């Protein structure tokens, strides 16, 4: 690598466009809402930055605290389910024949590139009252002659509740969890697993005492990669949860659209940012620790 002083012209030519763009269209806007989160509305359009903490204080009101709490537990639960599904899938791909792996990996990632909105919409068609799932259940119901025994099938209300939101989040984010897991399991030194099995540990014991600790960095990366966007998600709770499953993202959107209370919305979105930074700090900590361990 070259010292930047050796070729200042090339240095500045390659550096400036990116730095400029990120500064103007990212850092300035973020700073603007950060400042706004300490502001007060003075009229319909005007906001004065007064340094007040009232907006943050408002997020601790029972109504909002409940929504924040709900967003947290929905995201934690959905992340856990994602991990429980993605780990075996990533494991299976890593131990599949080598020539299959790129194809399998592509199959996992591909849905991720399909528009989030479209995937959520596809789920509505499955879960709505007259959707595919209820239709299939009715067919099974009639197949088992339950309609003669008990009565006609009552379609289940599968949409517009917390369960639907969790299923939606898992569906949307699961592929994202597989990638970091795959990357670490792939690099796993299999002789450790052999040693553990040779020394008499059972498959489960080996998995929980050897495989899981060794793939911890991937697990942590995956959790963070999935948890942060889930927490701020507004599309999935909006379309699958309706008014029954409001998350922070929906409240933020409301403040900037219908409710027109930008300072409060700004405080809420910065609350999300603070949580994000905390999560990233945790990852940096775990990374540093696992690197230290390998070094010993």
């Amino acid at each position, binding site marked *: *690598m*070259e*010292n*930047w002083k050796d070729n200042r012209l*090339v*240095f500045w*030519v*390659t*550096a400036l466009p*990116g730095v400029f763009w*990120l500064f103007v*269209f*990212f850092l300035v*806007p*973020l700073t*603007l809402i950060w400042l706004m989160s300490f502001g007060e509305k003075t009229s319909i359009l005007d906001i004065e930055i007064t340094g007040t903490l009232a907006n943050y204080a408002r997020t601790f009101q029972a109504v909002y605290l409940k929504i924040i709490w709900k967003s947290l537990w929905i995201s934690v639960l959905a992340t856990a389910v994602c991990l429980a*599904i993605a780990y*075996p*899938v990533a*494991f*299976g791909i890593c*131990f599949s024949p080598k020539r299959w792996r*790129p194809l*399998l990996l*592509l*199959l*996992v*990632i*591909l*849905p991720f*590139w*399909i*528009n*989030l*909105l*479209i995937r959520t*919409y*596809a789920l*509505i*068609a*499955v879960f*709505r009252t007259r959707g595919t799932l209820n*239709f299939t259940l009715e067919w099974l119901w009639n197949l088992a002659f339950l309609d003669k025994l008990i009565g006609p099938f009552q379609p289940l209300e599968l949409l517009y509740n917390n369960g639907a939101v969790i299923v939606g989040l898992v*569906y949307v984010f699961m*592929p994202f969890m597989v990638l970091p897991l795959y990357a670490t399991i792939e690099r796993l030194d*299999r002789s450790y697993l052999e040693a553990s*099995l040779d020394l008499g540990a059972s*498959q489960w014991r080996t998995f929980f005492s050897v495989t899981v600790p060794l793939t911890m960095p991937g697990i942590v990366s995956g959790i963070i990669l999935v948890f*942060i*966007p889930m927490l*701020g*998600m*507004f*599309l999935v709770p909006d379309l699958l949860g309706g008014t029954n499953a409001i998350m922070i993202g929906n409240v933020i959107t409301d403040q900037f659209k219908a409710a027109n209370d930008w300072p409060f919305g*700004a405080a809420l*979105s910065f609350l*999300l*940012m603070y949580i*994000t930074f905390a999560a*990233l700090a945790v990852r940096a900590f775990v990374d540093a620790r696992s690197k230290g361990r390998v070094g010993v």
Partner: protein
Amino acid sequence: MKRGPLDYGRSPWLIAFAIVTFIMLYAPIAQLIVFSFNDSKRNVVWRGFTLKYYQKAWNDVSLVEAFVNSITIAVMCTIVATIIGTAVALWLWRFRFPGKTAVEGFMALPIVIPEICMGVAMLVFFSRMGRWIGSFESGPIYWWSELFSIWPLNLGAITAAHIAFSFPFVAVVVRSRLAGFNRELEEASRDLGASEWQTFVNVILPYMKPGIIAGALLSFTLSLDDFVITFFSAGPETNTFPVKVYSLVRRGVSPDINAASTALIVITVVATILAMKLQTPEKQG
């Protein structure tokens, strides 16, 4: 053949689990695509093949307009994001300078922060800019703002936001390609008397090309797929495809949304597969 203790790849449980997961992942999308050809409004049972919903979507002026807007934004975003992203990749690959780690962290920020935070930041930023520019009644800024009310420049705000979140991805892809570059080639080129620029055009650029194309396709799909940031930074008079679909979806399930969605899925899937093909490093000698 008997399964060895480490032969997890042939464990029937693991295979069954993976197959079920893949089915769950693809079934809703497959259903969406299949039912876009279904001759029924209720869309639960198959009633025969039709293209009428594609025709209906095609004749929906606002839907087509939104689609054209989305493609236009994606193309403009791709061009600028690819140039900036490539420059950033070269910058970080070539130079060491004080504060580099901080810069790398800063460049990764648009990738890691929740989309909604960036969306509302853009909303506030552009509305402030709009009010400031609107306070001019003549002079260069006024003329400039007049120019930016003409299509496609009126999509400028959304495009600028899209560039901001997609060029860091381009930089990551191009930089990982550059990591495999043999710097001796560059030295050889310089030794043989090529200038800095000639070396760049004839040696480094050809090597980077697959990475640049992959990055460009990536930013194209990122821009085309984006809903949240567009939803916030779009004014009331501009519509993009995902924003339009969102307003339709809120009204319920209908086959013409399926048709329009299928068109978008085909475009993004083709772009993604192409990008992946280009990203996999070719086998070396």
